[in-house]
């Protein structure tokens, strides 16, 4: 479904990604972990064509999207939904207008049908009856839920999550994790979650990719990653800042 081949990306003077390779199968739920500023979000944005690589390829269902222009990317992006780190809700619109945005733009549905689909999507994210609210009236967790409703309302094949639990308290983070699982199971979507929240990574991922030193450093099931004896992986998943603490593993 998604294949990344030898992806390299430099932003300004900084080399962010240097030869990233991985493959995600249809229906899979993959979590990409790595340190803050390590290029996880940059990598995620390449998957939907928001950024273009300096070299390498990003294949979506066999089509290399890395050299498509903005207009050619539009049909490819209809296969995707994306939840942004800050939700990125349109602040000039209500919740209903945000969630129904893609449907209205497609002009395939009547206003009543759009309203019905919006209500259903808000039901999935456990925010029924909030259609008339403005994004400024919502809490951080609610904004993320609305962002998720907007991403899934048109039933995409792939949903990308950029730091879905960052900045949320543990209880709200847990509810977002449950939503990600629910969306995966109900809509049978391929999920790619970028996070440095290890609890979340363990819960929502069927497979974990660890980005380190600008490349995919480790890959495995959550159990494999969390029980890894590799010092780099061990330090990261256990949140150890002092390298001396992992010396015993060698």
């Amino acid at each position, binding site marked *: 479904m998604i294949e990344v081949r030898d992806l390299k990306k430099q932003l300004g003077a900084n080399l962010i990604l240097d030869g990233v390779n991985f493959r995600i199968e249809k229906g899979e739920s993959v979590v990409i972990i790595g340190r803050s500023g390590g290029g996880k979000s940059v990598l995620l944005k390449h998957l939907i064509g*928001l950024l273009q690589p300096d070299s390498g390829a990003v294949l979506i269902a066999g089509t290399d999207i890395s050299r498509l222009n903005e207009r050619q990317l*539009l049909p490819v992006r209809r296969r995707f939904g994306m939840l*942004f780190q*800050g939700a990125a809700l349109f602040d000039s619109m209500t919740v209903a207008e945000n969630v129904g945005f893609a449907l209205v733009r*497609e002009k395939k549905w009547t206003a009543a049908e759009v309203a019905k689909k919006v209500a259903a999507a808000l039901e999935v994210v456990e925010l029924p009856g909030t259609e008339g609210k403005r994004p400024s009236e919502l809490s951080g967790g609610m904004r993320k839920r609305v962002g998720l409703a*907007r991403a899934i309302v048109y039933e995409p094949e792939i949903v990308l999550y950029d730091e879905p639990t960052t900045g949320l308290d543990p209880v709200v983070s847990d509810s977002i994790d449950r939503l990600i699982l629910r969306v995966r199971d109900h809509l049978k979507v391929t999920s790619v979650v970028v996070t440095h929240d290890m609890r979340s990574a363990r819960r929502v991922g069927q497979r974990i990719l660890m980005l380190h030193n600008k490349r995919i450093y480790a890959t495995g099931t959550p159990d494999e990653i969390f029980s890894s004896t590799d010092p780099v992986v061990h330090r990261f998943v256990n949140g150890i800042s002092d390298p001396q603490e992992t010396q015993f593993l060698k």
Partner: protein
Amino acid sequence: MTTHPKRWIADWMEGLGELTLLTLEAVRSLLTFKVSWRDFIYQLYFIGVKSQTVVLITGAFTGMVLAAQTYFQFHKVKMDTATLAVVGVSMCSELGPVLTGLMVAGRVGAAMAAELGTMRVTEQIDALRTLATHPVDYLVVPRLLALIIALPLLTAEAVALGVGAGYFVGIWLLEIDPVYSWMNMLRYTGDVDLGIGLIKAVIFGGFIAIIGCYKGMNCGEGAEGVGRATTEAVVYASITILISDFFLTLLLSRLLHIL
């Protein structure tokens, strides 16, 4: 030290290239009717209706001061009744479109850059793109279309009020002969002058929209980036209006007088 000017020129050329590509993309989108009409109507209201006060005050006081200054000079050579002719020609072909353009660049160009800049730093533009919406179709084209329609209308208003205010100052305050003044004004102010002014307004409207949208969509990170984009949008749009005005005057005068 030696790379500095080269870098500056390279950045400038790159910016010019991106502006050209944005303009071409906007024109292509406009021609294929990929416009968000609801947003277009809102922009037309925001630009046209909400700019009334500032444009009308600018037009009126420009006409008044122009009439007074022209009279003070012409009176010395006994050409009092040519005062309104100067006011008419100046307002129609130069001061009307240029001052209206500058005022709208300050009000609307800044607002566009700030709004789109904020959308960029909060990832709302990226969100648009993920929702299979081209930012040029949704954000740029409604603003461009609204400005190239609204600015000539605002200019026409400013010109009418400026000439009217100039007439008031000349006839009522400075006591110039109304009949000869009126006749001279009609004699020397031609359709061509008004045509030049309105064509300039359409072009200035395009400049304000493209520069405002470009600066907003390409602004730097954070509040500082948005602030800088807003300032640059106003400064660049104003400079572009003033420089292009000179060349447009030469070009349009030739073209319209030949036609």
